[in-house]
């Protein structure tokens, strides 16, 4: 079995090799330990119930153990080779590439490890070092780019990629943070929310419902609105009933026929606009999904379309099981309420959207727009920054909320996007360009 273990300068297909730890001439590995990283667990136990609960767990750093033998002609040559080794071990952080046979290369991100056990057989000129190299928990594979320059439509009913993108064929053993590149040449301000569903069959979730296709109360009519998805919406009039108890819009099985796929936490959002009245008109809206009633949300200063956050709703999450049996399917009937608290306008509803909010949801305001630059939602670095079209870093001065998405291997990962304008009306024509990259993470090595 061939084994390449090399200190390199970058995670790439052809990095510069600074030191080969198993070149078969000077450096030779005789023993290696790349056991998977240990798990840190929070364990809760009481004498009042059997067993222990583990509410949280995370991987600890791993320790790469290896015994390397250095064979040289004389002591001077040995000192030279040891210096080369020590210089690599002394780096605060380093990259150790591992390629076994025909497997894909993986890279361990290591930390300083100059404390090792040495054996020197003087007579033989033979030097053995037992290294214990701390490293980040996971071995990283080469960068993968499953999505490149995909046009994400800001209309959920678009024929393709309507406010979502699927990432499939993710490599690795465990979930890995994604690097999202956002490009938008329109140079308009962008408030971007990104959510992810990485379990089950995300495509089985109905993401949105056109308001005019829901069951309409007598106070609601289907109207043509050019700035709406599909060119239509549902207009709520308040002349006869003006309360938060009249079910304006109703949709049974909003997410689809009752299914175990629907268990989860969702953030409902509605795209609304005002018709008639004045910009000073105020409205209040509320949604119910299943047995859960949301908070009353005030919508004010409404002119053109804008997204309204109706709040978080939990549907049997954590999942409910039939004893030790099967998970129970979940209904998702949605009712939308609205009333006008001042003015004389009507409320037009374009669509209602359900964003998964039980894995990760992230919102960032890119402010004045990206323009020809690119916005980077960098999961590996857990930061957001902006780069020029020439690749230079511009700024990281964004204050996001929430967590950046990770991608789960052997699973379709559906990324959901809600793109709004912070200071002007939302436009369903506000498309943007998306690229998705990631580095596979392995507990051991790549196949």
């Amino acid at each position, binding site marked *: 079995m061939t084994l390449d273990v090399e200190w390199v300068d970058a995670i790439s297909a052809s990095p510069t090799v600074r030191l080969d730890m198993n070149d078969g001439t000077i450096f030779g590995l005789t023993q290696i330990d790349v056991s998977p990283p240990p798990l840190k667990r929070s364990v809760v136990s009481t004498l009042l119930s059997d067993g222990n609960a583990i509410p949280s767990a995370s991987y600890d750093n791993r320790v790469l153990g290896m015994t390397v033998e250095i064979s040289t002609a004389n002591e001077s040559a040995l000192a030279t080779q040891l210096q080369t080794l020590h210089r690599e071990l002394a780096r605060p952080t380093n990259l150790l590439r591992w390629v076994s046979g025909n497997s894909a290369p993986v890279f361990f991100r290591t930390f300083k490890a100059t404390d090792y056990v040495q054996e020197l057989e003087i007579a033989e000129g033979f030097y053995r070092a037992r290294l214990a190299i701390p490293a980040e928990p996971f071995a990283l594979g080469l960068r993968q780019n499953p999505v490149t320059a995909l046009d994400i439509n800001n209309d959920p009913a678009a024929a393709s990629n309507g406010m979502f993108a699927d990432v499939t064929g993710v490599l690795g053993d465990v979930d890995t943070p994604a690097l999202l590149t956002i490009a938008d040449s329109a140079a308009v301000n962008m408030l971007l929310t990104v959510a992810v569903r990485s379990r089950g069959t995300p495509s089985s979730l109905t993401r949105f419902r056109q308001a005019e296709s829901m069951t309409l109360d007598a106070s609601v009519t289907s109207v043509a609105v050019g700035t709406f998805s599909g060119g239509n919406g549902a207009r709520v009039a308040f002349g006869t009933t003006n309360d938060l108890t009249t079910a304006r819009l109703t949709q049974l099985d909003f997410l689809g026929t009752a299914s175990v796929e629907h268990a989860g936490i969702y953030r409902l959002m509605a795209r609304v606009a005002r018709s008639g009245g004045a910009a000073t008109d105020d409205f209040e809206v509320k949604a119910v999904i299943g047995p859960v009633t949301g908070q009353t949300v005030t919508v004010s200063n409404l002119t053109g379309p804008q997204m309204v956050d109706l709040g978080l709703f939990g549907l049997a999450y954590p999942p409910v099981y039939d004893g030790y049996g099967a998970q129970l399917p979940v209904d998702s009937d949605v009712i939308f309420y609205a009333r006008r608290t001042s003015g004389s306008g009507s409320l037009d509803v374009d669509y209602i959207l359900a964003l998964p909010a039980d894995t990760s*949801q992230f*919102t960032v305001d890119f402010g004045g727009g990206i323009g020809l630059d690119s916005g980077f939602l960098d999961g590996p670095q857990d930061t957001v920054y902006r780069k020029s079209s020439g690749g230079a870093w511009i700024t990281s001065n964004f204050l996001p909320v929430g967590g950046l998405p990770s991608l789960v291997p052997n699973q379709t990962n559906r990324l959901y996007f809600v793109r709004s304008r912070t200071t002007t009306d939302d436009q369903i024509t506000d498309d943007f360009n998306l690229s998705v990259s990631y580095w596979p993470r392995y507990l051991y090595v790549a196949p």
Partner: protein
Amino acid sequence: MSLPVPLAVRLTTSAGAKTITREVRDLSISGGIPGGFGAATLPLDRPLTTTEIAAFDRVYVTDSRHGGLVYSGRLEDPGRSAGPDGQVWTLVASGGGSHASDNTTPVVYVDQIDFGMLQRAGSSKRAGDAGEDVDSATGEPAYRIGLPNGFTAATNDEVSVLYQALRETGQTLARESHSGDMGRTSNDWRLRLKTYPSGTVARDDAFNTAGVAASARRATLDFPAADNYLKFMIQYTGGGGQIAVDTTWAVIKDPYVIGSRVDIFGVALDDTLYNKATVNDEDVIRDQIGRNCPLFDAANARIAAGSFEMDQCAYIDGANPAKVFEDMMRLVRRYWAVWGINPTTGLYDFEWSVFPSGVRFGASTRYDLFESPGSMLDLYDRVKVRYLDRKGRVRFVTRTQTVPALAAAGLSRTAPTINLADELGSVANANQAGDAFLAEHAYPPNAGTLTINRPIFDSVLGRNLWPWELVRHAPAQLIRVADVAPRPDGLNLTERDGATVFRVMNVTYSPGTGAVLSLDSAPRRLTTLIAQARREFSRARKR
């Protein structure tokens, strides 16, 4: 997949926003009532030479799953250490409630005029007599102004005293009322109220042995809105002559003033709104937000409707909003809290809310660590409330209630005296404070803790909340702990019962420990006890 705690920690610094989730060694956040978000501690591994971190930088902790705010606050002066653990910053943040102590200002909402504060006016005749007296009908303190037998009075001679507290607080006079008795009946002798600086005669009553009833005078209607001090006076309007009787006097009874207020945005209230002789807790809270809390989000603040009408509420020595809020909590079943910062406006979310009734959360001793030292020492069926009246005399009222546990044991316990001093000193306030105190001490407080390391159902939000989410959502709420001294009526409780249902006062969360809920009483920290002692000491001072 592992199950790391899905929290993201970010700072806004002079160098921009920074995500420090992976750099903090640990995380401890807290929230409770009163006050809202409390202290947070974040040990951070960074070189001590870094200039990125400074006091008053904001810290945000959000839930990565849905972006919800878990905690926000401002950094205090960060601690630094270098030792075996390396170079470590100890970041300590405090929640927005600390800004309620930023500004101390004197303010008069409603003042039953302390006679000791009345000053002789320069125009007052020296031969005149002005001083404390007694209402002959009620025995309550009153104030007498008069001239002696034998005094030769000229036209417009006066004996007068000034009330100038509002000049010191920067307010204007909004409303005044008093009643009066006179020793004689005469059209030449007048009991008058004049307001200044305009010099307007706001009220003019001829001497009449039948006396005069209370009659309110209001800004704009009866005197200019800019007037901020007043004069009580008796004045001779006749042609002149020697007084030949001993009855040339007037007694002013039950005078009160109401100072001008602002709305929650700091805008002066319209004078037509001063249409009552009292102010309530909502009035006071809104004024404090508008007057002294520029960092609180006034537009979206949640203020419960007024519950108790006060006839005395004046902080002439000055008070900060935290003290005022606390005083309001002594009178009404409300609490105040300051929660998250709006990243766009930089303003804090504020609430003054009714203690919720109805159990919101459920826990179980089977899965959650429950500790209840228990104590009957906080049960009381009597309490005395001390206050200072208009004359500065110490007065007491005694309030009682029936406590089933004490009655069954044949015991009676009197609580330590509550001191309202002069700021809230009135009979009505004393009765209210006493009753509120006893209501809180009818059932033994738990004074214990509940540690939760799993999601529990929130009946208001309709979903399970994880332990870190309890920091924001659990304080002030009722939680039922199953498997603890069950009672038949335990399912229908709307208030804590000291056995099954408890009120969450404080939540502290750290990833390694989980959420520790303090039940029925705030954690007894030394800093809290010292602060309470200071407040009690300051109340004992008289004007």
